[in-house]
């Protein structure tokens, strides 16, 4: 360890760009982590309504019972969380079929979530 008091900038670290920003941004909400975990487990398309139901039940059991109801959960999934996750290339969202599937960044997501897990 050195004592770094100079005016140097840590700008030469390779920390990734917008792609990493979006991955971490997606992981910063528990509902989005829940969806990713579910998709990692089943490895096949899951309907948005099934996700909403499970998420609503999870909220109700994990919190003090004041969790969001499934329809409220579904609204925020459809209008907020799923678009963010699709934009980050983490899921493929079939709007017509109303299903979502894990996209191509599986290993990265798994690694990040596992770090969260090991930490506890």
């Amino acid at each position, binding site marked *: *360890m*050195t*004592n*770094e*008091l*100079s*005016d*140097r*900038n*840590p*700008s*030469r*670290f*390779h*920390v*990734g*760009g*917008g792609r*990493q*920003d*979006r991955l*971490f*941004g997606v*992981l*910063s*909400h*528990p509902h989005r*982590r*829940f969806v990713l*975990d579910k998709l*990692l*487990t089943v490895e096949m398309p899951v309907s948005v309504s099934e996700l909403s139901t499970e998420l609503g039940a*999870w909220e109700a*059991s*994990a*919190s*003090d019972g004041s969790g969001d109801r499934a329809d409220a959960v579904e609204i925020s999934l459809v209008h907020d969380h799923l678009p963010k996750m699709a934009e980050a290339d983490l899921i493929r969202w079939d709007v017509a079929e109303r299903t979502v599937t894990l996209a191509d960044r599986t290993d990265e997501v*798994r*690694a*990040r*979530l*596992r*770090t*969260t*897990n*090991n*930490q*506890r």
Partner: protein
Amino acid sequence: MDTLAKWINPTSEEKSSQDEIFDALADAQRRRLLLFLLYHDSHYVSKLSGISLEMAEMHRTLLRRYLSGSREVDEADKGLLRTHRIHLPKLDEYGFIDWDRETHIVTKGRRFDEIRPFLEQLDGHQNRRSVKRPLVHLQE
């Protein structure tokens, strides 16, 4: 069955602690600062001066709009303004850093150890192809 299963029922406290870890990491400038602190005890953050200092004092809504937009202002150091007005307050509030506003020195915060495994993982991923360790490249 994946070991991820046990992650799925965190308490609400653990949930928000995870939210803050990932939110802290969701910006390249914040990742750089945190990674720097992984290898160093402290970092001196340049003071705002001139136009940047004047802009730092402007109306909060205007400042936020400027900092989140793509418009540039001559002679203003937008990166440094973002550091002072967004990144440092956020990381300090979460407890990942201690930011001494008088001396302009940033050190590891009380919750730094919570974010450490993520930084080590990030460092391994991003800097694996670096020529040699230590993986700290400082710009003069």
